[in-house]
């Protein structure tokens, strides 16, 4: 495993050399073990010889599946056969080499476009000559500059076939990159591919940017910007860059959270004194205050059914997570384990929440099952914050400041796998995973 990680790191660094600076990838390190891994061979595709090029389809697929921690990849240098067509596959060889599945394919140049064929094969069925060994097989015609995006799409198909869960390789992440210099700081709200490639700025400012939140349709980003000294909440179209300020009240304008149907924004205002949760109707801009009292109430997050909002409050002393049922106004405390639980948000199925949890002065990410109230700590860096679930619920994206550099952490929701994406360009804050984008 160690060798493989080293290989991976090497290929990432090599890939950087071929990339213009604007596309520089985040560097990846796997920090926590690997769960029961499915053995698979990704055979280099014909037509692409540079395995480490950023648009090498098979190379990107291999990196994606490897990064998920759920696959055991056969080393390409150990492959004594490298077939590209289904009829050329010797299933006995791949079985003997310990694989359950094989991915083969080809890339052919058709001018400015490429034709990509791939097939996902079941080694057991192929060996048994049962005839149904092809689990997935497709041909794509794409522009050359979309090869990497297509590779992520193929990774999603393979992941779903083999795990039964939708893949997240073609999704995106947003985060704030902070560059601190003696002359002042620079804040950049970036959107990047889920593997950290292709970072593109949505907003650049010399004042703090915080709390980016994707709309559920993936087209808009809400965030807090201090660009004019006092904070405002903006909604920006991710495609066109057009934006509008939706909240600029005296005091806090913070922690925006989209309702599941994107028609409303929950947010935090302190215009009447204390930080309280409000709900803004985005078509009318009308505002409704939904919590009250002298406590801190912040970090709202909607339940997937839109009927309730969880939030952080110190109404019981320290920060804990509470649930507000919108129809009744009833508020119920959800967390009782430990004296600091904050920034809660729901899993897609509404069965669990992810949060910041402090034990012995260490801030880690924890997942709490709402039925049983059982809490599981899934990261162990001690400086972890800003967690959110991936759209398939299998992973949690968070900010880790271990080593006092802000980096992206990605952990499996069961806590068995964790990896880290870092950059030399600055500190990463407040990451947020996009919804499914296609």
């Amino acid at each position, binding site marked *: 495993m160690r060798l493989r990680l080293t290989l991976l790191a090497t290929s990432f660094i090599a890939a950087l050399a071929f990339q213009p600076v604007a596309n520089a990838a985040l560097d990846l390190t796997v920090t926590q073990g690997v769960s029961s891994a499915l053995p698979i061979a990704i055979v280099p595709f014909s037509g692409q010889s540079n395995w480490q090029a950023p648009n090498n389809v098979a190379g990107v697929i291999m990196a994606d599946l490897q990064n998920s921690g759920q696959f055991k990849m056969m080393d390409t240098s150990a492959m004594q056969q490298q077939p590209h067509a289904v009829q050329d596959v010797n299933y006995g060889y791949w079985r003997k080499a310990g694989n359950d599945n094989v991915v083969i394919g080809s890339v052919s140049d058709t001018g400015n476009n490429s034709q990509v064929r791939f097939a996902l094969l079941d080694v057991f069925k192929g060996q048994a000559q049962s005839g149904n060994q092809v689990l997935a097989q497709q041909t794509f015609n794409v522009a050359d500059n979309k090869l990497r995006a297509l590779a992520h799409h193929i990774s999603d198909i393979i992941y779903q076939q083999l795990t039964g869960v939708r893949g997240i390789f073609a999704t995106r992440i947003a985060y704030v990159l902070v560059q601190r210099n003696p002359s002042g700081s620079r804040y950049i709200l970036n959107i990047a591919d889920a593997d950290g490639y292709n970072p593109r700025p949505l*907003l650049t400012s010399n004042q*703090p940017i*915080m709390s980016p939140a994707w709309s559920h349709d993936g087209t808009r980003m809400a965030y807090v910007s201090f660009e004019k*000294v006092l904070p405002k909440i903006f909604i920006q179209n991710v495609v066109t*860059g057009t934006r509008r300020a939706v909240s600029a009240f*005296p005091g806090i304008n*913070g922690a925006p959270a989209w309702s599941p149907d994107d028609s409303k924004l929950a947010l935090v205002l*302190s215009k009447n004194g204390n*930080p309280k949760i409000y709900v803004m109707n985005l078509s009318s801009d009308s505002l409704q205050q939904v919590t009250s009292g002298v406590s801190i109430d912040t*970090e709202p997050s909607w339940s997937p059914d839109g009927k309730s909002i969880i939030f952080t409050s110190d109404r019981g002393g320290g920060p804990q997570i509470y649930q507000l049922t919108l129809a009744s106004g009833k508020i119920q405390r959800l967390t009782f384990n430990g004296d600091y639980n904050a920034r809660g948000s729901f899993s897609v199925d509404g069965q669990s929440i992810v949060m910041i949890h402090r034990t012995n002065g260490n801030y880690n990410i924890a997942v709490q099952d709402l039925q049983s109230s059982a809490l599981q700590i899934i990261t162990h860096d001690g400086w972890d914050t800003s967690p959110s679930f991936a759209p398939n619920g299998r992973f949690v994206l968070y900010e880790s400041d271990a080593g006092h550099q802000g980096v992206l952490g990605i952990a499996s929701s069961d806590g068995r796998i964790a990896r880290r994406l870092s950059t030399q360009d600055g500190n990463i804050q407040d990451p947020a995973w996009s919804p499914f984008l296609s």
Partner: protein
Amino acid sequence: MKKLRIALIGASLMTLVACSTTNPNGADVTDGAATDANGGAVNGVVAGGAGDADNFGGNNNGNVKAMQVGNQSYYFDFNKYDVHSDDVSSINVQAGYLATHNKGHILLAGNTDERGSREYNIALGNKRAQSVAQQLKAGGINDSQITSVSYGAEKPAAIGHDESAWSKNRRVDLTYQTPITLDKK
């Protein structure tokens, strides 16, 4: 003693007014499209003037010094927002000045140390600024003389990852603004 200090302040206030109008510091903000939402091509990033922010009097300006009235930073315990009793007299000095200069305007910026949740820290910084505001108002100054902002953990005064840095970052900074140069839009 107190009288003398106020006289000095009066002089620097005048200087500030003169300087701060000539040299507003523009915040550099650009925004633009990243890409289409469907996993596709990159559109050209539109770099546009989303706004030219005005800064507070003299903050980033070498040739202008922000006005000082005694001690203008107040410190807090971890996760707490009650004013330390030994800061009360310093805050009362500010209140005394502002009560007699009812056109004087201040910014209270609440801050926290780096630990914990970012938005919770924004709320915590807000509560700290609020505590100082309440102490000032008890000293007879008007709500309209105070603008509060919380930066949470985003603007540390001391860089470091131990209690000696954290204790310097859990603070409210009081800044005199002359004139008031907040967002004019």
